């Protein structure tokens, strides 16, 4: 492919985007206005050894730079390429900065995900904002604080004495005078590189971090004032719609757009196989689109009933397995061999994809809800053969993503229509388009062969076909392990999702471990604790077990207890579930679910609890009933009336326990807590009625099959 750049070229292009390299001292203040600022260069961070590097795989840019600016009027502006999609990092990152600067959160503004204003960032995903961006911003803010103190000492001609700071003021040690941060920034063009060794405030002394600061711009959302991209309007803006194939894999043969073009105010845009329309309102655009007569050439597509065979038969050749692994399995007295099936599921962000584009000469601006604004900028560079400097992508706080908005389709479509019509164009995808033309969480097939003795795991062979390698490492002590992820051909377009691979891997792993404990006649909780070598994981298991009351007697013979645990992306999680299976109807009901989660020092307890609750409940959908139905290219449940997601009535009696480890660095929470709900329920069903359900979703009809 001609667009494929070499690693070296990519690295160079990437370095050019780092502030402090391309940005001179003079241009910085011209751009930012006078004041005091601190910036951060990614290479320094790498040199500090905090992040591991690998020559072939240069560091992800989201591990990198950012800057903070203090204006003469005392306003603090923080620039980060991270984006807000509901995980509430706008609040938590503000807290981190406020803490170091002794300022209320209200005096700090975060500029996020604007490719012109913020430093390059590879994307907001992988639970990386809190472990990577928060420490950088903390240090940058601490650095700014030290610069301010130094300025105050100079102003007052004081030596290296310590000064008190409070609410944006610095106090003179003895004459009662005060200087505001803004006073110190007046007329200055002071730019300093962040000192990596700058002291930061210990988590045990946090006053703002560690507290439940409310969503910083919360009122705008409660009153409907916040403009998501789908709400935005520009002068002379048109509403765009794009012609889609009837099924996946269909190619356009011919199309007649005459009727559409004859509708007053409608402009038809054709560019190769792309056909779109733009009109003064979305109703007219939809009618114009519907009047296009198109012929399509369909090709045979893999259907859902062939899915798992296809994933295995199309998989890349695996590694050679150490014969010791197979031998240990053959010789074991207690062993299990089983497969797990995981269906495709959809993210269903409540705000479907939206893009708004405007051209001014050869400069392009695009507003779009994406987790990767810089990735969308690169997509646009390729689509229009335009240098990145001429493209600005904005990412206003967006109506959720869950890993489903890594791409820029709607923004690109809007840009094509805008270029052709010479007017700004907005493209809001319909729910059906979001289901059919975005991407799904991968389906997967997992084959497990596990054997155990009282001493632990004696053989473990684990093959994941298609759903990914994350979280594939068995946390239990044992020998003879073979764990492998096999890439396969995916019939449907797939991509990221909250803990996509870990959800599948932990489901298969925690189910099989539970079954092995059963074979050994061991208590599933005790068997796990005996065979784990991970204090943090053990701590959440114990916390959840106590709250759940693992040792209590079941009130009813048709009730079952189940548990699961997992260490994913810096988070440690355990979920315990009690379920009941109705003796006649076989309907399954969750009686209680307890989840304990630990991700280091907690920055915002309330928002963390929301993330954990959200993960568990969203996970419940994939665990019990969500799946994408598809047949020969047609996705047949591409509507919210046919694709069921969790609602109020699906919420069980649930409890979230947050384990706060102020002695450990904070990590992310948007993914890890999702992984245990499915295996915990699966194990509880087995406990209740002796039926092992090795597929996700487990109970699309809500009914537990006979054993």
């Amino acid at each position, binding site marked *: 492919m001609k667009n494929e750049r070499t690693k070296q070229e990519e690295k160079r292009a990437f370095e050019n985007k780092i502030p402090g390299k391309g940005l001179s001292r003079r241009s910085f203040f011209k751009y930012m206005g006078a004041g005091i600022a601190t910036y951060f260069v990614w290479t320094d961070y790498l040199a500090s050894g905090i992040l591991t590097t690998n020559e072939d795989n240069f560091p992800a840019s989201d591990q990198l730079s950012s800057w903070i600016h203090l204006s003469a009027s005392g306003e603090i502006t923080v620039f980060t390429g991270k984006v807000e*999609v*509901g*995980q*509430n990092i706008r609040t938590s990152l503000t807290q981190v900065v406020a803490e170091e600067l002794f300022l209320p959160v209200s005096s700090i503004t975060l500029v996020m995900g604007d490719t012109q204003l913020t430093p390059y960032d590879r994307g907001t995903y992988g639970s990386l904002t809190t472990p990577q961006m928060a420490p950088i911003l903390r240090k940058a803010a601490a650095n700014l604080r030290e610069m301010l103190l130094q300025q105050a000492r100079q102003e007052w001609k004081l030596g290296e004495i310590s000064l008190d700071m409070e609410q944006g003021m610095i106090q003179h040690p003895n004459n009662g005078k005060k200087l505001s941060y803004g006073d110190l920034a007046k007329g200055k063009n002071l730019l300093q590189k962040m000192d990596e060794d700058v002291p930061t405030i210990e988590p045990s002394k946090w006053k703002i971090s560690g507290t*439940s600061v*409310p*969503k910083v711009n*919360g*009122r705008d*959302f*409660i*009153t*409907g*004032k*916040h*403009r*998501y991209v*789908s*709400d935005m*309007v520009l002068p002379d803006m048109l*509403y765009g719609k794009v012609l889609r194939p009837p099924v996946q894999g269909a190619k356009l043969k011919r199309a007649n757009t005459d009727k559409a073009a004859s509708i007053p105010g409608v402009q038809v845009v054709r560019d190769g196989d792309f056909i779109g329309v733009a009109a003064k*309102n*979305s*109703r*007219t655009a939809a*009618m114009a689109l519907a009047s296009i007569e198109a012929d399509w050439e369909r090709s045979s597509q893999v259907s859902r009933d062939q899915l798992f065979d296809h994933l295995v038969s199309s998989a890349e050749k695996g590694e050679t397995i150490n014969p010791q692994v197979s031998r240990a399995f053959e010789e074991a007295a207690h062993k299990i061999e089983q497969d797990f099936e995981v269906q495709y599921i959809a993210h*269903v*962000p*409540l*705000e*479907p994809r939206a893009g708004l584009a405007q051209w001014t000469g050869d400069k392009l601006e695009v507003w779009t809800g994406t987790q990767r604004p810089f990735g969308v900028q690169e997509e646009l560079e390729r689509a229009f053969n335009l240098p990145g400097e001429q493209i600005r992508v904005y990412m206003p*706080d*967006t*109506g*959720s993503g*869950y890993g489903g908005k890594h791409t820029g389709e709607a923004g690109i479509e809007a840009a094509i229509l805008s270029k052709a019509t010479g007017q700004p164009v907005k493209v*809001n995808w*319909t*729910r*059906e388009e979001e289901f059919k033309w975005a991407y799904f969480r991968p389906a997967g097939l997992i084959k497990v062969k596990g054997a155990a003795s009282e001493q632990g795991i004696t053989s473990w062979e684990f093959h994941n076909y298609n759903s990914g390698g994350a979280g594939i490492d068995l946390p239990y002590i044992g020998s003879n392990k073979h764990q492998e992820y096999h890439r396969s051909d995916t019939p449907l377009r797939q991509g990221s999702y909250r803990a996509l691979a870990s959800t599948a891997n932990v489901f298969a792993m925690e189910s099989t471990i539970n079954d092995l404990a059963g074979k050994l006649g061991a208590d599933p909780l005790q068997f796990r604790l005996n065979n784990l070598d991970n204090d943090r994981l053990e701590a959440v298991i114990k916390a959840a077990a106590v709250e759940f009351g693992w040792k209590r007697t079941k009130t009813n013979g048709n009730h079952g207890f189940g548990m699961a645990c997992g260490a994913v992306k810096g988070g440690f999680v355990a979920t315990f579930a009690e379920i009941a299976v109705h003796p006649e109807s076989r309907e399954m009901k969750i009686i209680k679910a307890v989840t304990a989660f630990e991700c280091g020092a907690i920055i915002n307890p*309330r*928002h963390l609890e*929301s*993330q954990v*609750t*959200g993960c*568990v*409940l*969203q996970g419940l959908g994939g665990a019990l009933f969500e799946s994408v139905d598809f047949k020969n290219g047609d996705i047949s449940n591409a*509507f*919210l*009336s046919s694709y069921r*997601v*969790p*609602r*109020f*009535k699906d*919420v069980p009696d*649930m409890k979230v326990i947050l384990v706060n480890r102020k002695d450990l660095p904070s990590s992310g929470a948007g993914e890890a807590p999702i992984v245990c709900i499915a295996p915990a329920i699966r194990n509880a069903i087995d406990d209740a009625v002796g039926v092992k359900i090795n597929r996700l979703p487990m109970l699309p009809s809500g009914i537990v099959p006979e054993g």
Partner: protein
Amino acid sequence: MRINVNDRDYAVEVDGNPSLLEVLREQLDLTGTKYGCGEAACGACKVLINGTPTPSCITPATAAQGKNIITIEGLEKEGELHPVQKVLMEEDVFQCSYCAPGMILTAVALLENKQQLSEQEIIEGMNGNICRCCTYPKIVSALSKITQKDKA
């Protein structure tokens, strides 16, 4: 055609039979009302029509003629939030908040003229609204605060 939204009369165009949602968003620039599914399955587009929460995505604008429509923009009175907005904000309920306008208007109608609602009644009344971030437990507990305060 004229419609009344948030106690104001507007002249709107209804060529092509647009939905109330389209008219609110595109002609009146009241974008607090959201599109979520287009088939009344998610509640994001709910507005109050003569006090009843109604999915505006499947309601033809012409059907709203002569009725009083309240959108999220019309709840705040002289800078004062509606008690439902207030409690949801105080309890810091939402994540991405895209569902918030529809949730709030549904709750406003549910609570109207009711001194007390049980948790089960709140769940029943709100079940037509989807929050994909799954903030459901917090919505229920926040609404419980203002519906159960008078309990003996």
